């Protein structure tokens, strides 16, 4: 049977996020969580494969204990089991460390996996790094920006969005894909499934020791990158009235907006000005 692993991240639900001003980290315990939209699409892609050719889906997440909720939601939607990687020592991990922890946990808990599906990026950090790094950590091929995919024997054929082009690729299994959000309308959670996911499903909860991972290599301690400053930029609107003769108005426009006009024209206006 096809073994599918879906990596899911619980992200904060609100747009105005509670940040810790000292560390720059998000105060996750203050925000309501939800399944990251692209992870939802990755789960949807896995469910489509399961519906078409069968398979077993393991949903896996690293996060605080409250992240269990997205695993139960995944089970309500049709995943078969959930694995929660939670340990205070794992907190503050950057994307490299996150990929390392996920890889070791997948190797330990999902031996013989065929396909790992990740969301393209998360709505709370948008790095799009965990998927590709996880493929490296697992030493398997990986394809990003996948829009649609289909399993044929031991191959996955997929459509990938590359800027303005659609690429069709094939990859041998085992492999990893990162899935873009938005191809299919999101599945709604069936309420009976949700009730059963809370009443019956067992979630495997693993800490660093259970994964058998070097405590020096995880969490903020093991992370090579640190977030130095995070803030929520405020949007502002301004009415600008340009007065004077038409020539003067055009000059003022260029003074204020030459970067934007230049980029729209595909030319560096400052260079033009200097050379003329």
């Amino acid at each position, binding site marked *: 049977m096809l073994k599918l692993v879906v990596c899911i991240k619980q992200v904060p639900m609100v747009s105005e996020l509670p940040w810790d001003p000292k560390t720059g980290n998000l105060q996750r315990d203050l925000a309501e969580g939800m399944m990251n939209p692209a992870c939802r699409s990755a789960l949807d892609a896995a469910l489509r494969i399961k519906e078409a050719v069968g398979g077993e889906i393991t949903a896996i997440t690293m996060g605080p204990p409250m992240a269990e909720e997205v695993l139960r939601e995944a089970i309500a939607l049709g995943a078969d089991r959930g694995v929660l990687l939670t340990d205070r020592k794992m907190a503050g991990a950057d994307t490299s460390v996150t990929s390392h922890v996920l890889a070791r946990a997948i190797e330990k808990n999902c031996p013989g996996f065929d396909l790992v599906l990740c969301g393209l990026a998360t709505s709370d950090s948008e790095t799009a790094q965990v998927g590709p790094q996880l493929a490296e950590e697992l030493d398997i091929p990986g394809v990003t920006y996948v829009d649609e995919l289909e399993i044929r024997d031991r191959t996955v054929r997929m459509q990938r969005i590359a800027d303005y082009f659609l690429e069709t690729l094939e990859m041998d299994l085992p492999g990893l894909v990162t899935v873009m959000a938005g191809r299919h309308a999101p599945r709604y959670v*069936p*309420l*009976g499934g949700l*009730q*059963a996911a809370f009443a019956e499903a067992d979630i495997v909860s693993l800490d660093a020791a259970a994964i058998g991972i070097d405590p020096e290599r995880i969490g903020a301690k093991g992370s090579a990158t640190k977030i130095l400053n995070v803030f929520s930029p405020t949007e502002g609107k301004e009415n600008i009235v340009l007065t004077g003769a038409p020539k003067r108005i055009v000059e003022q426009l260029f003074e204020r907006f030459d970067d934007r006009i230049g980029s729209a024209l595909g030319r560096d206006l400052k260079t033009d000005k200097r050379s003329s």
Partner: protein
Amino acid sequence: MDLNPCMKHKAVRKAVRMFAEAEIAPIAHDIDRDARFPWEIVEKMKPLHFFGLQAPEDYGGAGMDTISYAIAIEEISRVSGAMGLCLTVHNGVAVYPIVRFGTEEQKNRLLPAMTRGDRIGAFCLTESNAGSDAGGVETTAIRDGKEYVINGTKIFVTNGGVCGVALIFALTDPQNPQRSAGVFIVEKESPGFSVGEKEDLCGMRANPVSSLVLDDCRVPETNLLGRSGNGIKIALETLDTGRIGIAAQALGLAQAAFEDSVRYAKERQQFKKPLSSFQSIQNYLADMATEIDAGRLLLYRACALKDAGRPFGAEAAMAKLYCSALATRVTNTAVQIHGGYGYSKEYGVERYFRDAKVTEIYEGTSEIQRLVISRAVLAQRT
């Protein structure tokens, strides 16, 4: 005592809210304006178990606990009171009494189609001369061989125009109304059953509240729910459960009006400042928030008692009395905060205001709730 919602209840709220905001909210205004029942929404709700919220899984239901049920009704009502009403009546006073009092044969025959949403349920007590006074019912169900012949007219039937199964409260012996009341299962194909005129109501306009006419309507004897003569017991217990649903519905309407008010108060400028900077408006918002919280705690307590298998009738009546009254007050204040726009159909609060009032009237008026509560209070030893 943990007053925080557990992970499951949070997940239920998010799941229902996601569906309600994406699928129902965009048409909620139009279905109210056009007084149209949205069958397309019913189709989308079917696979998500909205029509079998608390029914056991063996009969196709979701098997939810009562707090989850209340949250689901609250969230649907937060975007459409009329659809919240459809669901709470179907689940709370049509499916529930069949689960609770039906024979195994009745459950197997009726519940799968009802929990799938293929047959929407209605509960029919009110008549032109009976409502709060259940004893005033004049509809009769006279035994004729292996059948009952039902005659009478039921009015203000929620889901009346779209129901596939109607539970009819009727007397088998009009000379002995107290002892002969029964609840009869009438299916829309039953000979002699017809839908009467649709009511032209102030609110809940997307729900086809109608009269139902029973003219020599014949049903097999196996369509008597429970035993003959236990109609009053079934009705009272069903209404206890129904009150939880109406309290949840009222709360959802109040929540919607409150959220709209907070948003509007922050956006709308008067005297070059947002409305939210004025103490009068702040006081309104503080009162709204406090009342909604108090109502929610009352409601969830009644739900928790029901789930624990303990008596919950008086607590459900308190929740219904308080939540319906707060819904009327909160939606009224919401219109006030919105000013002229609040009185316009351009904004949602006008609809919530019209929808809220009836929660003080149906499933037992506020006066009847006080009767239920005062009986419980006076029965206690002093």
